[in-house]
């Protein structure tokens, strides 16, 4: 059954040096995602991708355009390379793979992701990393609204999002754990000619960390006080913060072959006042 | 600490003579300003410290030795104080700033506080030494001493006699209390005479009574506690004594004490009455303890005004670097605007504190005081504050209001001069006595509330608005 399914797509699947190349042009997302799953299942050797060992079996998907749910629910440590613009819910419920996108990602990338890595050579849309529990997301440029919303660490799981450009409003809303780093550097969307709305020239939008009750947000450069959610407190870095930042930022530079000379003293750190910001809200 | 005593030449920046209320407050006062310099305290007693007023409670068995100390055991350590016990000052050489003891120890001070307290007054009483066969009082008359009779030896009592003759005591120190205790226990004493109905007399009477000893108080004036009580107040207690099968004799003196076998057997009052007794407590009051200040010296003249050492409002004496505090001092009586010796505990503490702070270089004023005392005998509490017997005040501006409830044994007397309270006497119900001392201290005009002063529910709320505000919002408030 599975074999016959793959055979029916043999024209668009090619074996490559270290995996497969799929031409996704005009392929419906259901088919594309099933192809990926079947290819993973067929890999009986489990010679899965490992960033450290340098071994890699890569599924490269070319001409991706709007296909949703790529990587959804996959648990094996494969690597998927996407060229084009994948659709919404990229890597939703993903639990292991590394996905690298040469292009922009749409909304809800990394939705409720458990582990793995998403590397986006471009922008990502709204609610990037929604409820993310583990894994890492690297966005070269900007992200939309509500990135990192409700992300939370859990036992050994520890989610991280690194945003090279600018983040929209409600960054880290309800955030309960993990790290969000915004560099505000590599943005292609800064002074918009059409923008009528009052935005300061800062890396993040309004309502940063509103409802935040865990985790840390690091932002390169200071931000206007009014933007801070009422539950968070701004502070300067400590020594241990710098080590954490260096680790993830060097990853970011590596993935996107970038280099900036960052002055680590310019980072600010946002943390919640309390794990229970609404302790006094209710009358009993 | 005792090994220090072996050192003959001792030096300290601060030296305090006296180890009681004033002396120790002085030490605290110094320490509040000077945390380091050496402070040495000299006492002629052998105890760390004890509260002199407590000796009667000790005698009565109401407290034990453990609790007679009014400062904790670690008080000296905590404040880094050096205590020299058994240090009997012989004389002070003010020019060299040296203090010499009878056993030739020498202490050198930079600043000195004399807080040596008071010593009992020994009245001019005749001691009659009876032979085995002689009985006291027979045919006795006023010429007894002059003419002698069948060779009875007699002489005027001296301090040595009190030490040597069994059954004669003063009652101002722990030693006294211990001695009495030992004596009454060993001899199963049942009967006692107390010479003097003042505070010491009453306190000792109460203690002895509680040990089951009958008391005969002989008071020279017309009432008990003559400086504070009036006749009504006195009678309340006199009656209480009588109820306990004891007696109080006022307007009486003791002219002769009969000694047999070196032991008191009886006293004879001024009117010739002989009272057989096993012991005699001489409680005729105290006087400032200034004997060690050489009478011949210039300094003595400068230091002593009437009976004690006179100080200014910084507790400085006329002698450079010498301060004084406590029962030895003569200072201002704010009610009479006179200089006198007011030997009461709270003033000793306040003076000691002021002296200490001034010694350490802080200007802390002592603004004077007035007498006040509280007693409780036979469960009747009594408080006398200020001038309760205003003899020398202009009668025109003087008002005395009283209320006496015989059934409840409650007596209140308020002395008002120029619309200000200058004295209060409360017997039976003393619950809110302090309000009156506040009114006296603060010279509050009570013209409008005179009618309320004696009421049972009299309290802060009836006080004049400004003063009440000061009290209610007073110390604790910055509204």
């Amino acid at each position: 059954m599975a074999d016959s399914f793959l055979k029916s797509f043999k024209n668009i699947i090619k074996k490559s040096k270290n995996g497969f190349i799929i031409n996704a042009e005009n392929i419906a997302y259901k088919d594309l995602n099933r192809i990926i799953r079947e290819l993973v299942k067929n890999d009986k050797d489990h010679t899965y991708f490992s960033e450290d060992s340098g071994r890699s079996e890569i599924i490269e998907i070319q001409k991706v355009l709007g296909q949703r749910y790529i990587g959804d629910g996959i648990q094996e440590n494969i690597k998927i390379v996407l060229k084009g613009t994948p659709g919404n819910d990229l890597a939703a419920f993903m639990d292991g793979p590394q996905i690298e996108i040469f292009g922009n990602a749409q909304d809800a990338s990394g939705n409720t992701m458990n582990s793995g890595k998403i590397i986006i050579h471009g922008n990502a849309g709204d609610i990037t990393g929604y409820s993310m529990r583990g894994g890492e997301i690297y966005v070269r440029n900007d992200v939309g609204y509500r990135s990192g919303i409700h992300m939370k660490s859990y036992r050994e799981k520890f989610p991280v999002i690194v945003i090279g450009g600018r983040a929209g409003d409600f960054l880290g809303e309800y955030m309960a754990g993990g790290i969000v780093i915004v560099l505000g550097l590599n943005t292609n969307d800064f002074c918009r000619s059409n923008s009528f709305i009052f935005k300061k020239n800062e890396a993040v939008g309004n309502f940063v960390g509103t409802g935040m009750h865990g985790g840390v947000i690091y932002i390169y450069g200071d931000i206007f006080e009014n933007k801070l959610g009422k539950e968070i407190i701004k502070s300067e870095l400590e020594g241990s913060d710098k080590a954490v930042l260096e680790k993830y930022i060097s990853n970011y530079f590596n993935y996107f072959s970038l280099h900036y000379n960052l002055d680590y003293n310019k980072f600010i750190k946002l943390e919640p006042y309390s794990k229970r910001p609404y302790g006094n809200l209710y009358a009993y | 600490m005792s090994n220090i005593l072996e050192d003959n030449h001792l030096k300290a920046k601060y030296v305090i003579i006296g180890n009681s209320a004033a002396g120790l407050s002085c030490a605290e006062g110094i320490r509040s300003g000077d945390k380091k310099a050496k402070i040495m305290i000299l006492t002629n007693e052998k105890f760390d410290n004890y509260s002199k007023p407590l000796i009667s409670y000790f005698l009565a068995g109401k407290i034990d030795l453990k609790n007679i100390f009014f400062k904790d055991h670690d008080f000296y350590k905590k404040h880094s104080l050096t205590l020299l016990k058994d240090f009997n000052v012989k004389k002070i050489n003010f020019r060299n700033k040296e203090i010499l003891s009878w056993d030739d120890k020498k202490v050198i001070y930079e600043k000195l506080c004399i807080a040596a307290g008071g010593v009992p007054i020994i009245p001019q009483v005749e001691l009659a030494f009876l032979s085995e066969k002689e009985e006291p009082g027979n045919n006795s008359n006023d010429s007894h001493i002059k003419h002698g009779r069948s060779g009875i030896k007699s002489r005027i009592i001296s301090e040595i006699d009190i030490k040597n003759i069994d059954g004669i005591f003063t009652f101002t120190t722990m030693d006294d209390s211990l001695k009495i205790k030992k004596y009454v226990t060993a001899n199963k004493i049942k009967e006692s005479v107390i010479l003097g109905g003042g505070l010491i007399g009453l306190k000792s009477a109460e203690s002895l009574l509680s040990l089951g000893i009958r008391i005969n108080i002989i008071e020279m004036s017309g009432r008990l506690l003559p400086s504070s009580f009036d006749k009504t107040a006195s009678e309340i207690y006199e009656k209480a004594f009588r109820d306990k099968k004891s007696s109080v004799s006022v307007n009486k003196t003791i002219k002769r004490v009969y000694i047999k076998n070196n032991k008191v057997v009886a006293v004879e009052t001024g009117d010739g009455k002989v009272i057989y007794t096993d012991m005699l407590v001489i409680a005729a009051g105290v006087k400032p303890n200034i004997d060690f200040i050489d009478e011949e010296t210039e300094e003595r003249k400068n230091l002593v005004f009437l009976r004690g050492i006179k100080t200014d409002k910084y507790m400085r004496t006329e002698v450079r670097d010498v301060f004084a505090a406590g029962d030895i001092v003569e200072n201002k009586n704010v009610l009479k605007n006179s200089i006198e010796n007011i030997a009461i505990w709270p003033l000793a503490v306040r003076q000691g504190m002021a002296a200490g702070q001034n010694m350490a270089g802080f200007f802390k004023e002592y603004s004077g005081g007035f007498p006040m005392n509280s007693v409780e005998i036979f469960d009747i509490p009594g408080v006398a504050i200020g001038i309760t017997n205003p003899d020398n005040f202009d009668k025109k501006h003087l008002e005395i209001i009283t209320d006496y409830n015989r059934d409840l044994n409650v007596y209140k007397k308020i002395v008002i001069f120029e619309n200000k309270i200058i004295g209060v006497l409360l017997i039976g119900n003393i619950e809110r006595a302090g309000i009156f001392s506040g009114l006296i201290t603060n010279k509050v005009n009570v013209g409008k509330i005179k009618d309320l002063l004696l009421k049972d529910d009299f309290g802060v709320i009836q006080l004049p608005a400004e003063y009440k505000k000061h009290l209610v919002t007073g110390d604790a408030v910055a509204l």
Partner: protein
Amino acid sequence: MNLNLKYKSGYRVPSGCAVFGVINESGRVFNGEMVINAISMMHDRSNGLGGGFAAYGIYPEFKDYYALHLFFDDSLARKETEVFFQKVFKIKYAEDIETGKNNNIKNPPIIARYFVVPKNIITVSEELKELDINNESDYKSAEEEFMARFVTDFNYGSNNAFIISSGKNMGVFKGVGYPEDIGHFYKLDNYKGYLWTSHGRFPTNSTGWWGGAHPFGFLNWSVVHNGEISSYGTNKRFVNDYGYKCSFSTDTEVLTYLFDLLVRKHNISIYLINYILASPLWSDIELFPEEIRDIFKTLRIIYSRALVNGPFSIIVGNQDYMYALNDRIKLRPLVAAKNKDYSFVSSEESSIRKVCPSPDRVWFPDGGEPVLFLLNKKGKKPEIEHSPVEYLNEYFSSNMCKDKQKVV
């Protein structure tokens, strides 16, 4: 019955959707293939119960006439309507709108178009007699007002015929089906316009009906909309108070009337519209420079009932511009892109890339931040008055925006 009455009688039909719009700012026309392609990328955002397109510049030969597109239940309705039209309008030209056969399109109504101008409006409308008409421009406004009232009254009063499009040199093509099917059904590759908007519909609570499909056309306005408006009742009453009758019970209809009321009748600059429909928060208004804070405060207070609440992204077409806007906390997606003189807005980036694989620029507008692409007719921008917004922009661009560190 396609035009089932029950959808007209006060039942509101909320819907979630896909929207797409493209404009050639130089005014170059292009056929509908591109927009069909683009909207088809978002097939999954609609459910086959509604799709449609609006196109501007498609009727150059009749550009001075109102192009009325109508749905009729049956030929009787058509007949009655045409008799009525004869009384009111000078009808320059009328025809059935050509449709192709498409298996996915079921039970289409009769679809026809009429190019008309009203006969002397002074004589036909008692109400308009009161208007003070002194010159041509007054007359033009009065004529627009007449048409506006005519269209709303007609639709409100009719059960079996609806005017779905009533602008000049533009038209709305819509129906029940997936948008790509609708596009092919209307043979949109035969039309050439410089501005196209499109809509794929996912209505809830009811099956779709032809009249309820989007875009909503009214005079030159066309509106496509994604989301559900929580403030519907408040907004509806607001436009009702100014004489608009809501016949279609859709959020989009109310939105269209809001634009018509605010821009056409209240003369509020399109630059200011976002400050009403997606007003800045009071806390943001407090941050505006003092000189103009009161203006924005006043704007919000007076037009509080025009605040559109709840999630929405809309694309509004007009003869002069394409305008897109999100709700102020951005509960719906919106992506904009620019490639030379083509400009795009869409619910998803993939639709833009479908028709324009590598645009010069792609960005996400912020919540409440409008996207406005003006038609550059013969190098002349439409006359838009100086507004506080320009002042605001100037203020912030001079004070706030400085170039960031460049990539090494």
